[in-house]
């Protein structure tokens, strides 16, 4: 039993209040107990804690450890450059933390947008006197005075009403004002006409209502609570980055410890071993990976913006590529939201709207014109799209028809019909239009060819088959009826008296054509293994017909209507949701969050569209919440991850394509970055195993990881979508970013080729300089510095070949179009300039302990670049052949 079921007197008793309102001291007491009537954010960790968290996740802890070891090494064994290393690692941690925090932190603007929908001042009755008080001071039991234009401050039960109409658009998305009354209502609480909900607006009439829920306990507060408390969790990419960093840290740690122990075994000193262990660990940690991923996502979001998809959170860029299910609205997203009346059923036949100017069809058009709240003014039709379409059709068929409207029984979501009464030269007529299932039971007669006949079962069947035929054509169908009214029946007539024994006239079918780009976009989704679930307020036949027309379904889809949905438990719904083709019809936005939650529980990556205030929780819950840029409310936009600037479904599919490309590109540049870890690590192995001078210093490693590698890696992040990207199924949750093939290719193929080049360069310079095996060289020795410079330069120039190799793991770089990614050339140019600065400037030499090398050293290293590219082409060719054979 809820408050809507009680009579007015019982309502007052239940809330221990009276018709004259609460006493001031009781209101104060209740305010202290129930708290202020305001929207507040669900409690979250303080901002500072969220910022500090960026310094304590796993990768950060590993880097902190490395920095601490570096500082300790510098303190105990100065002069090895460990201080600079420690500072560089600390800088990496701070930059990563600030980058990530800026991405994760978003001011909670959705709640701010919600708060704007509540009033500041309200009129209440207290101690018998009308008072204007601050809305936050409303308490349960307060009598709220409602007049036209008022925003309702709290959920309240009407105890008095006079023609009160409330617009629920802010709460339910329903734009048509709802007539309210104050009698008990035995049905659903949310559908009850005697409840006035917080955040809605009084359109006309007046009334009094008793507040029974305030602040966060109102329906509006419930939406606010869900919007601020619900979190989608880590994005698939964020999860993958966590996994990847753990794998890399483990590899680096184990390798470091292994060689530290090996050094002891072969008799090296503790400090030599220690510096070596730190060095090899640093070499294997890709410090530049996170900033590169972030920048790559940022570039992806810019590309999406150019395709009319505005991304609000960077991680969403890749999440889009992982989407397995898109839950989409129909009207305005799949269709044009451009309603047109196209077909009419009268006299037992369906005819085209152009032929509707005579006979019964003319009478139907008259109702369509008069029983209508849309207007034609200044050359434009204004009003609800369905009513506008009817008015346009009627005007085009019959011209203007002025008539005095005496009375109106407004449309509401429960009745699903409206009635108007008009005066015509001495007679009065009631005109009704609405849903057939509501209107037909109220009709006892039917007009056929001007004659009024009893509505016999056969005719009843005929109407139903016409209704089904129109809906099967994807049309939204409205029924029309009329009745002569006696003077006695006005003005105190009740809706039930007027809307009975009516004469059924016919049906009109309205078409909302699909957007032209949608069928192709849906075809792409099917090819890409993405399921599309339509969630619409339309009836199931209309929804199915549209779905069939746009290629969304092929066979007989499972359709679930709102009332059945409400009756199903989670287990039943999950079973239905696992079916291939499913449509939700006669649904309201409040159902969306449950659909999204269940799909997520089933392991799907879900994108959902929404535009209304009560779509906000579902938009927050989904992996990707997509708000409509044109028709969406501010609340929906603030709660979403992506805004469609053109409200078009095809734009979602374009964004998915970009998202998939971004993931592929991330894999490309991770291969590129990881490959350079091997030539960074091998010199350390040689140093300890071969007892040679260290071929590559720690700072030179950082010059590659955080300097020269960055821009070419970013250029790989901007590769265009490959033709096959939307022809493969969504990435499985078990697929790893750091997959075994990727690691093998980077660490055991590309990396060793680069390592061979860098060791060759190092030894060649030493050999040319007359170095003899076993001779120790101090760090300041010019020959030694030239040799390490050659080693570093070898990495840089083989990475130039590597960037081309990494553009695809299987396709030849020449088949991709060698010059098709211009950014790669820009990245390489910057890479070369940086290396020249490091090698040929005094400050570069001072910081990185390098020395200028002659041109012949570069020339001698060139063949390694070509060899790497050739080896990769051969590997790709073999890979393609194996793939084809297996296929």
């Amino acid at each position, binding site marked *: 039993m809820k408050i809507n079921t009680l009579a007015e007197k019982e309502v007052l008793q239940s809330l221990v209040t009276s018709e004259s309102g609460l006493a001031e001291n009781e209101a104060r007491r209740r305010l202290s107990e129930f708290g202020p009537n305001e929207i507040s954010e669900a409690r979250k960790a303080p901002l500072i804690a969220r910022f500090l968290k960026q310094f304590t996740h796993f990768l950060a802890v590993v880097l902190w450890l490395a920095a601490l070891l570096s500082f300790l090494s510098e303190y105990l064994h100065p002069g090895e450059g460990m201080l600079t290393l420690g500072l560089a690692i600390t800088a990496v941690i701070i930059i990563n933390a600030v980058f990530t925090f800026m991405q994760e932190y978003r001011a909670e603007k959705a709640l701010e947008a919600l708060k704007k929908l509540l009033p500041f001042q309200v009129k209440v009755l207290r101690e018998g006197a009308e008072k204007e008080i601050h809305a936050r001071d409303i308490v349960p039991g307060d009598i709220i005075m409602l007049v036209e234009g008022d925003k309702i401050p709290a959920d309240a039960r009407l105890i008095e009403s006079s023609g009160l109409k409330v617009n629920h658009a802010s709460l339910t998305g329903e734009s048509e004002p709802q007539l309210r009354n104050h009698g008990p209502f035995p049905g659903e609480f949310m559908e009850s006409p005697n409840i006035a909900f917080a955040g809605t607006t009084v359109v006309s009439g007046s009334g009094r209502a008793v507040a029974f829920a305030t602040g966060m306990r109102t329906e509006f507060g419930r939406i606010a609570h*869900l919007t601020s408390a619900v979190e989608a969790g*880590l994005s698939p990419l964020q999860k993958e980055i966590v996994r990847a960093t753990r794998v890399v840290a483990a590899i680096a740690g184990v390798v470091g410890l292994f060689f530290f122990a090996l050094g002891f075994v072969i008799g090296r000193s503790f400090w030599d071993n220690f510096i070596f262990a730190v060095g090899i660990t640093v070499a294997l940690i890709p410090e530049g990976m996170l900033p590169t991923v972030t920048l790559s996502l940022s570039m992806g979001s810019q590309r999406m913006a150019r395709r009319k998809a505005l991304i609000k959170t960077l991680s969403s860029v890749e999440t889009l590529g992982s989407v397995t299910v898109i839950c989409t609205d129909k009207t305005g997203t799949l269709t044009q939201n451009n309603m047109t009346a196209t077909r009419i059923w009268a006299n037992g036949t369906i005819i085209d709207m152009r032929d509707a100017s005579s006979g019964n069809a003319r009478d139907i058009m008259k109702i369509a014109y008069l029983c209508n709240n849309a207007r034609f003014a200044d050359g434009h039709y204004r009003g609800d799209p369905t009513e506008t379409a009817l008015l346009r059709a009627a005007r085009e068929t019959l011209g203007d028809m002025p008539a005095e409207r005496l009375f109106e029984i407004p449309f509401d979501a429960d009745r699903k019909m409206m009635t108007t009464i008009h005066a015509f030269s001495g007679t009065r007529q009631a005109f009704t239009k609405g849903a057939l299932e509501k209107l037909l039971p109220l009709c006892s007669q039917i007009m056929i060819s001007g004659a009024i006949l009893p509505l016999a079962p056969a005719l009843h069947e005929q109407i139903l088959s016409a209704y089904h035929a129109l809906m099967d054509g994807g049309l939204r169908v409205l029924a029309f009826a009329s009745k002569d009214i006696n003077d006695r029946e006005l003005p105190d007539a009740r809706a039930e008296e007027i809307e009975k024994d009516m004469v059924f006239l016919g049906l009109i079918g309205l078409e909302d054509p699909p957007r032209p780009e949608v069928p192709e976009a849906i075809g792409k989704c099917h090819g890409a293994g993405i399921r599309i679930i339509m969630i619409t307020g339309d009836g199931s036949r209309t929804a199915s017909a549209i779905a069939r027309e746009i290629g969304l379904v092929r066979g007989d889809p499972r359709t679930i209507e709102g009332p059945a949905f409400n009756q199903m438990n*989670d287990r039943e719904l999950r079973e239905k949701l696992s079916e291939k083709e499913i449509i939700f019809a006669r649904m309201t936005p409040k159902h969306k969050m449950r659909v999204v939650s269940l799909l997520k529980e089933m*392991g799907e990556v879900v994108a959902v569209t929404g535009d209304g205030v009560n779509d906000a929780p579902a938009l927050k819950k989904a992996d990707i919440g997509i708000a409509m840029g044109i028709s969406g409310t501010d609340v929906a936009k603030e709660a979403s991850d992506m805004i469609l600037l053109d409200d078009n479904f095809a734009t979602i599919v374009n964004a998915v394509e970009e998202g998939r490309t971004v993931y592929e590109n991330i894999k490309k540049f991770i291969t590129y970055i990881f490959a350079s870890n091997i030539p960074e690590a091998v010199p350390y192995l040689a140093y300890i195993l071969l007892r040679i001078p260290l071929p590559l210093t720690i700072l030179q490693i950082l010059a590659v990881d955080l300097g020269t590698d960055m821009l070419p890696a970013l250029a790989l992040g901007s590769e265009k979508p490959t033709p096959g990207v939307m022809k493969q199924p969504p990435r499985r949750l078990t697929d790893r970013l750091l997959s075994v093939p990727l690691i093998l290719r980077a660490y055991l193929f590309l990396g060793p080729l680069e390592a061979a080049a860098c060791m060759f360069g190092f030894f060649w310079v030493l050999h040319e300089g007359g170095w003899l095996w076993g001779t120790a060289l101090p760090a300041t020795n010019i020959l030694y510095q030239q040799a390490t410079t050659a080693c570093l330069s070898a990495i840089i120039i083989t990475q130039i070949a590597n960037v081309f190799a990494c553009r695809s793991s299987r396709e030849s770089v020449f088949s991709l179009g060698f010059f098709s990614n211009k950014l790669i050339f820009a990245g390489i140019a910057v890479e070369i300039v940086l290396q020249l600065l490091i090698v040929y400037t005094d400050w570069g030499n001072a910081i990185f302990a390098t020395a200028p090398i002659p041109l012949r050293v570069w020339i001698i290293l060139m063949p390694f670049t070509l060899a790497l590219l050739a080896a990769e082409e051969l590997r790709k060719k073999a890979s393609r052949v194996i793939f084809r054979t297996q296929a």
Partner: protein
Amino acid sequence: MYKKILSAINEHFNSEVAARYALHLSKASGAKFYTCFIAGKTDPRSSFDKAEAAMKRLFVLAEKIGVPAESITETGDPVAEIRRIAVHENIDLVFASTRREDAERRFFSGTIARSLSLKIPCSVALVRVVHTGRIHPSDVLVPLKARIGRIQEWASFISVMATAFNAKVHVFHVTKPITKFFHGDIHLTPVEWEKRIPPDMADFLDRLKKHGVIYESKLTPGAIGRSITIEAAARRHDLIIMGASERSLLSSLFSRNPVENVLRETPCDLIILKPRHED
């Protein structure tokens, strides 16, 4: 199980709403219903009048639904007096409403609610009233811990509440996500989660079945307090019934106390039960 149920009344409206729950529970369990008002020595006359009026209304309601009722008015320290009445009258269950400041103070420290739950020798149900429009709860959310103490009383209480209001029960268990070092969070489907149902919860569901209660059950990973309030808000439950926290002060300090979180953010009325009947 409950033969005598006492509800503490004060000058606040929410104590009357809490007593209505107690009254309907009395009706369903065939118990005698007691109301008591303990006036503080410095309380103004208006408080006394308010509480007296509430007790009268409850008395009338009890008569109307055929529950034997008795009202007691005393002066003194509320906790000591309620304890004395509970012992003297052999009360099985005491209902008391929580105050808003209870929800705002950590660990209810220094509140009457905390004192009642600690010092009363019988079972205690603390009621937080936040929504006065859902008069008879038809959907009750019952979040359960993995280990349930006094399971028999728990099952009885939920069954009688479900009978009293003809309500559907949604048993809910929030568990820690399953993680592996190199894998991160492991995603399990609802069916897989159901296989991990804690033994006490399975026992509890069996008992509900024996009592003929219609229920649904759900296991979900996440933060306990937040998951409960989200579930209650998303599914529009009318009432949450959960156990009192058994976390120590220290563990509550370091890891948040879920009961406190729910008390603060509950979207519907909340009953926190501290059962004391031995199984």
